[in-house]
Structures are given as structure tokens and as C-alpha cells.
């Protein structure tokens, strides 16, 4: 296997109100690694430490196998993408890109010119090469920033919430453009965001960060389906977290006793060793029916519920249920109309045992 594009080995840092605690992870060549976390979790501090703007108190950083722990930012071969992309406002598109070309001293003279036209062509910027950044659209800015970074021949891209200030439609479009571009370029990338959708769409691998420490590192599916703790679960959109106790295990099914009810869980869905657990159920995994279900499959939970509240959530509706414990479910507008439910009504909620994930309670 080739050398990882980036290795962080127990990097710790204290910087005013922020700190990083023993951060370790590695990224393979061409991989997009998303770091998901709330604001103030240390995402930007981590990126700026990798870029060389902060010196770690301890730990080491390797880029492409080189130990860059004590190297200055200009020698690390990093393409840094800030929110709104921070293009040089006093320079034209061409000269923005030229800044990166000039930065790498190996490129000079005619070679620089041909690299410039190659970059302009690759990112479709020929027609706007003489414009200033203020006159560019969001998508154009994104491509100029990528071209400028590419000019300096980076081994690693760092994205610091580049899309967070944009409206939803623009954001969707730019994110999809970016995904395609990153796949094409094949340069290892760290992308930090507080937006779980962004993480799901872009990540090959991902991590969740809180208070300067990584809580979980893994494949997006793994983190979304099997969060390591309650914080991760909540942050990746698990809205139902119900405390309980494992009372039995047989035929690959664990039975969890809740304060007010029971729930069946596929036995290998987490928290194997502990009996004090929390059951995690994503609201989109809850199905609602107006008639009581036929008792057929054993690996399915059925709860008789009362509708406490109905909340509009854009394309879906969030239904708050009282099943003896609180449960929330998402319904599409279409299903909602077909069910014809109202607040206060009785209904039946179903959750597959496979869709429940257990986390240990401390």
C-alpha cells in the first residue's frame, strides 16, 4: 500500500480557548475525509494546525510521508480553502492562479504559461480569466480557488466550511460540483463542516469532533448507523435515544427493557458487553400505520402510540409520538396525506430490530 497522504499522530495543542487532545488519524491518497462537529469544537484550529499556522504542543504531522510538524506553511504543499474561498480581491482570476504558480519556484517562464492555460482550461475559467473576484459567481469562485491551489501542486486540500455562508440551492449545486471535481483531481482532502448532509455526500471516511477530541473515526455508513456515543448519535441525526436495560438475548435478538415498554434489537447492533444501554432510532426508520399490524415477523417492534405533535420540516413532517416513551418519526407529505392523521389521534409505530442501534451508557 502507498504512503498515506496525511498522518496525524497524537497531536495536542492549547491555543487560548481552544485545545486539541491527542488527535490521530490518517488519510489515504485521493480520499475525502470529512470532520463533522459543532462550531467551537476545534475544527478550524485542527485544519490550521495541519496547515502549519499553529505549532502543536506535542504529536507529529506527516504529509506524503514527510514529517512537517515543524515546517512552515509555505513548504507543506497544502491547498487551503476558506469559507467564501478568500480569493485575492486586488488580483484578476489569472493573477490569483498565477500567485500559486509563482509560489512553486520550479515553475518559471514558459512552463508557467502552459500550466496556467492548462489550469484555466481544466476548470473552465478561460472566459473569465481577466475578471476580478468581486464579479464572480459562487461556483466560479470555487473553481478559481481550486485552480489557484492546484497551481501550487498541493498534496493535500483543506476545506474550512467553504459553503456554510451560502443559501441552500447554491450550496447544493456547489457541493455537487465540488464532489465531482475532487473525484477527478484525486487529491487527498480534509473537509470540515457542521452539516451532516455535507458529510454524507462528500465523505469517503469521516470523523466526529467535539471539544478538540475525535469521538469516532470511520466510514460514513458506520458512523451514521452505529454512532459510538450519544453526542455522535445526536449530531448525525439520530433523534430517538431511549435509555434501557438488556434483559435477554436469544436467536440473535436482544430484548431491551425500557422504563415504559420493551424494544427488540438485532443483537450485534452495538454495545455487546454492557447491560445499561441507550437505543438509537433514526426518525426516518419509524413507519406509521393507522391499523394494528398483523403479528407476523418477530424481528420488528410495534408500539401503540398517540400523536403528541406534528411539525412541518420542509419536505418532511416530523411526528412526535407518545409510546410510553417519546418517539419521533419522519413522514413525507404524501404519506401524511394518505394516513390522514391529526394531533391527539392513536396510531401504530413500527421499527425493525435491525434499525435499532445500541450504545453503552456510562
Amino acid at each position, binding site marked *: 500500500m502507498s504512503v498515506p497522504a496525511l498522518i496525524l499522530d497524537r497531536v495536542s495543542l492549547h491555543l487560548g480557548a481552544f485545545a486539541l487532545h491527542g488527535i490521530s488519524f490518517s488519510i489515504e491518497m485521493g480520499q475525502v475525509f470529512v470532520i463533522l462537529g459543532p462550531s467551537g469544537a476545534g475544527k478550524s484550529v485542527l485544519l490550521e494546525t495541519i*496547515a502549519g499556522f499553529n505549532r502543536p504542543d506535542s504529536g507529529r504531522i506527516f504529509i506524503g510521508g514527510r514529517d512537517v510538524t515543524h515546517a512552515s506553511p509555505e513548504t507543506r504543499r497544502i491547498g487551503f480553502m*476558506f469559507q467564501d474561498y478568500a480569493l485575492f*480581491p486586488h488580483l484578476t482570476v489569472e493573477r490569483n492562479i498565477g*500567485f*500559486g504558480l*509563482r*509560489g512553486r519556484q520550479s515553475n518559471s517562464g514558459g512552463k508557467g504559461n502552459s500550466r496556467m492555460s492548462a489550469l484555466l482550461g481544466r476548470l473552465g475559467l478561460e472566459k473569465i480569466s481577466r475578471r476580478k473576484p468581486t464579479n464572480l459567481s459562487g461556483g466560479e469562485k470555487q473553481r478559481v480557488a481550486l485552480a489557484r491551489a492546484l497551481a*501550487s501542486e*498541493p498534496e493535500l486540500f483543506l476545506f474550512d466550511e467553504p459553503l456554510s455562508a451560502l443559501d441552500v440551492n447554491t450550496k447544493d449545486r456547489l457541493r455537487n460540483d465540488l464532489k465531482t471535481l475532487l473525484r477527478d483531481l484525486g487529491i487527498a482532502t480534509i473537509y470540515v463542516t457542521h452539516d451532516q448532509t455535507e458529510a454524507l455526500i462528500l465523505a469517503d471516511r469521516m470523523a466526529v469532533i467535539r471539544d478538540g477530541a475525535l469521538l469516532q473515526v470511520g466510514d460514513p455508513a458506520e458512523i451514521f448507523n452505529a454512532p459510538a456515543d450519544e453526542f455522535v448519535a445526536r449530531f448525525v441525526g439520530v433523534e430517538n435515544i431511549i435509555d434501557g436495560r438488556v434483559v435477554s438475548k436469544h436467536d440473535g435478538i436482544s430484548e431491551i427493557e425500557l422504563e415504559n415498554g420493551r424494544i427488540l434489537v438485532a443483537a450485534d447492533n452495538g454495545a455487546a458487553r454492557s447491560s445499561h444501554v441507550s437505543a438509537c432510532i433514526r426518525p426516518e426508520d419509524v413507519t406509521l400505520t393507522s391499523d394494528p399490524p398483523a403479528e407476523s415477523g418477530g424481528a420488528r417492534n410495534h408500539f401503540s402510540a398517540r400523536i403528541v405533535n406534528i411539525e412541518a420540516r420542509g419536505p418532511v413532517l416530523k411526528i412526535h409520538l407518545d409510546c410510553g416513551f417519546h418517539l419521533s418519526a419522519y413522514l413525507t407529505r404524501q404519506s401524511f396525506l394518505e394516513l390522514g392523521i391529526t394531533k391527539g389521534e392513536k396510531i401504530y409505530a413500527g421499527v425493525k430490530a435491525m434499525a435499532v442501534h445500541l450504545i453503552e451508557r456510562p
Partner: protein
Amino acid sequence: MRGANPLQSRGLLFVFSLAGGLLLAFILIPLLRMYTTQTPASLMRVAGTADVMSAIWLSLEAAFITALLAGVLGIPLAYILSRMSFPGKRVVEALVDLPLTVPHTVVGIALLYVFGRTGIIGAPIDKLTGLKFWGTTGGIVVAMLFVSVPYTVNSARIGFEGVDSRLEKVARTLGAGPWGVFGRVTFPLALRGVLTGLMLTYARAISEFGAVIILSYYPMTAPVKIYDLFLQTGLRESTAMAVLFLTIALILFIILRQLARGIGYQKDRDS
């Protein structure tokens, strides 16, 4: 746009405009009144006097050197103040503004103790290099610099503060070292603030009288020469030179402002 703007009230707009108008009249009337005392012929006559012209030229020249020195010494401090916080920063800021509050004759006396014939800097420099600060252009520049350098520091600082530090970071990742970042990103983006500061310093330096006259009565700068004419020959001769000097200075500033407009990055001007 209609809104909460108090100037939409006619009464308030009237009172405020009246106050503003009075202020403008207060500035303009004395200067205009002075012009009415002169004819083109009287101005030509005073312009033909060699020592008058050499005094005006000396003022412009010394102020130019002052602005250059203010730039060399003031721009680095302005950048430090815009980007760093350190213990005692408020003291440094107060020191930068101090020359604005000290009476200029007091400045002249204080400088005499340092740059004068027996001054703690003036004497050794004289001994080592022969450069004197009393009764020379050097002395004039020293006096001008002391009273006018705060404008360069403060205005350049505002310019630097307007430069997004993320641009500097991006430039580093693109392979530019600290000097390269300052030269290719920070300074060009702050240039308008810097130029405004240098121009204010230049204007303030040209008009300095109190500190200059104590440190270097001779060679005479224009303000000193005007005062000298006032003492020697009375109001009429000094008024002619005053009008001539004012006219030259105004034309010079109009030209400089026009030149500066085309230079440097301005946020709202890209189109």
C-alpha cells in the same frame, strides 16, 4: 430609502444643515477674504522674490523627506498594531498619538535637548557624521516628523486592519514566505490607507511652524518666512506670500489626491 433616519425630519435637517453650513463658512471665509486682498500682479511680484520661493521649495522638500521617513518608520509599527496583541499595546497606541496633544513649541524645545548642539543624539551624530539638526533641513525634518508621523501610523493601521488575515494565510499555503505575503498581498491591499496617511503626514508637515521655528529658524520654511515677513514688513507683504503658499499647497494636494485615486485596491470600486 425611508426608515428610521432622523434626517427625514425637516426640523432636524434644517438645524443640522445650518450648523454644518456655519462651520463650512468659518473655514472658507478667512481663506477667501485673504485672496481678495491680492491681485495677480502682487502675487507675481512676491513669486519673483528669491528667498520667498526658496522658503516654499524648502517646505515642500522637507515635508517630502518627512513623509518618506514616516513611511519607513511608521508602516511597520502600523502593521504590528493591526495584527498583534501584546502587553502594553495601549501604552504604545497612546505614545503614537502623543505628538498630536503636545503643544508644538513644547515639541521644539524637547527636540532641542535631543537633537540640539549639545543634545544626546545631536552631539554624537554631529561628531561622527557632521550631520547637524539645528539650523539645517535635517532639523526641520526632525520637527516635522515628530508632529506628523501619527497620521501615517494611524491611517496605515486602518488600512492593514481592513485586510482579511485569511488572505495572508492562503498566500502562505500557496508558497509565499512571510515577506512575500506582506509585499504581494497585505501591502497592496492596504495601500490606500497607507497613501492617505502619507498624504496627511505631508500636509501636516508642510504646515508645521512651532516646532520648526525653535529647532531651525534658518533656513526658513514657508510658514517661518511668512511670520518673518509679518514681523519685518507687516501684514501686506506677509499676506501676499501666504496666499501664494496656500495656492501652491492646494494645487499640490489636488494633484496628489488625483494621483492616489488611481492607485491601490478599493473595496467598492471593482467593476
